């Protein structure tokens, strides 16, 4: 497909369409979740170790491997997963799908691949952004929560984690992005549904996307922990 409909142009459109909306949502969420993680962690470590200097390194390793990709991709499921599922559902119910087939356009390279690749790249980028946001927010609040000065917190920030944690988080983000967008398109493209239950199909896509992310997070955490150390 050349010219106006070449793959890179379609991919850029999808990147812009789904990425822009996700940007400020993930930033806002990162600020709030960063504080919650530190508050809960401090409560528990205060019980076990009675000494809070361990909290920042633990929290960063937890963010890099767990909360960074998980929360970013959960938000992306509700943002672009629901959008893709309802858009595909509408296409299916108003016969646009057959119209594309009649035009001899290969649906995979015109409609499906741009969206899946775009969602995967966006999830990787937003995972990075989410990690940074959460770390900044928990460092900012640590003097009041943990009673440690900023300088001390920043020194011990990356003691517990290494580059492998970052790679784990980004791989998880890629897996989550790929899984929820393909689920959304698969559910949306189911034949034989009227325009009335397009809404129900997109909620089904959101629910299955979130469930898939939780299951994948469990499996990937287990595999990565036993793979890397």
């Amino acid at each position, binding site marked *: *497909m050349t010219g106006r409909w070449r793959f890179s142009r379609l991919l850029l459109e999808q990147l812009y369409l789904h990425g822009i909306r996700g940007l400020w949502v993930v930033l806002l969420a990162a600020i709030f979740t960063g504080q919650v993680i530190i508050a809960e962690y401090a409560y528990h470590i205060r019980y076990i170790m009675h000494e809070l200097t361990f909290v920042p390194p633990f929290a960063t390793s937890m963010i890099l491997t767990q909360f960074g990709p998980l929360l970013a991709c959960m938000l992306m499921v509700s943002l672009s997963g629901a959008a893709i599922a309802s858009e595909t559902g509408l296409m299916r119910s*108003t016969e*646009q799908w057959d119209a594309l087939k*009649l*035009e001899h356009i290969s649906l995979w390279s015109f409609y499906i691949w741009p969206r899946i690749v775009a969602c995967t790249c966006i999830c990787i980028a937003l995972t990075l952004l989410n990690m940074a946001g959460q770390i900044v927010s928990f460092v900012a609040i640590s003097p009041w929560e943990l009673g440690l000065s900023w300088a001390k917190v920043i020194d011990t920030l990356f003691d517990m984690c290494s580059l492998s944690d970052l790679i784990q988080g980004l791989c998880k983000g890629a897996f989550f992005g790929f899984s929820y967008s393909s689920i959304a398109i698969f559910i949306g493209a189911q034949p034989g549904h009227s325009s009335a239950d397009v809404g129900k199909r997109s909620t089904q896509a959101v629910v299955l996307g979130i469930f898939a992310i939780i299951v994948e997070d469990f499996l990937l955490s287990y595999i990565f922990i036993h793979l890397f150390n």
Partner: protein
Amino acid sequence: MNALLTLKNYYLYPKNQPRCLGVDLKLSAGHSLAILGPTGCGKSVFLKSLVGLAPFSGELRLLDSFFHHPLPKLLKFPKRSLPIGFAFEKNALFEFLSVEDNLSLAGAFQDEAQTTQKPSDGERLLKQIGLWESRKKFPRALSGGMKKRLAVARTLIKKPKILICDSPLAGLDPLSAHSIFTMLKETVNTGSTLLVMSLQSYTLALTHFTHLLLLDSSGNPVFCGNIEDFYCKNPHIKAIS
């Protein structure tokens, strides 16, 4: 003049009802076929089976490719796209593309050999249907009549040899229905295209069309042939119209 569309004992399977009687038709350029029948009698299934979106059995010759299915099977899509324009009932406009892109996508995958599609074609068509000012808008913002016009324009841009429309005049007020119908008739009057259309109003079918296909409520063809045979079969109708 070679026949563009020939059907020999063409059977249909609308909503897996029992088989209906065979349809035999021979249409060439410049002819126009009107399909009439109550709602839910399989008019749109018949139109879709011509293009390969619904299973059929019997012989179908489209332009120069021939399909013979003893059993009900979907039409295998020929490799290159045949110059056939299809306007859907629910005018399947691509919601995620602007009006301009809807048109350019329709003509983008035509073989360069058959029709050289210049960008000016799109502009001329848009001006003709009065959508040139709102070409950057999305189909969501258009009114009912404008959506139907865009759907028909999308089929005309490929300069098709066979133009198939699924009840394009349904639910429209007389003024926009008139403008769409004149646009379709002009393409047929040029003598190079064949128009196949499903309709609701009998008076329009009898006055403006050369061939007629009447279906009853369970999908069996009651009459199939050109207008003259229809009149000589039931002369009292000629007196009324």
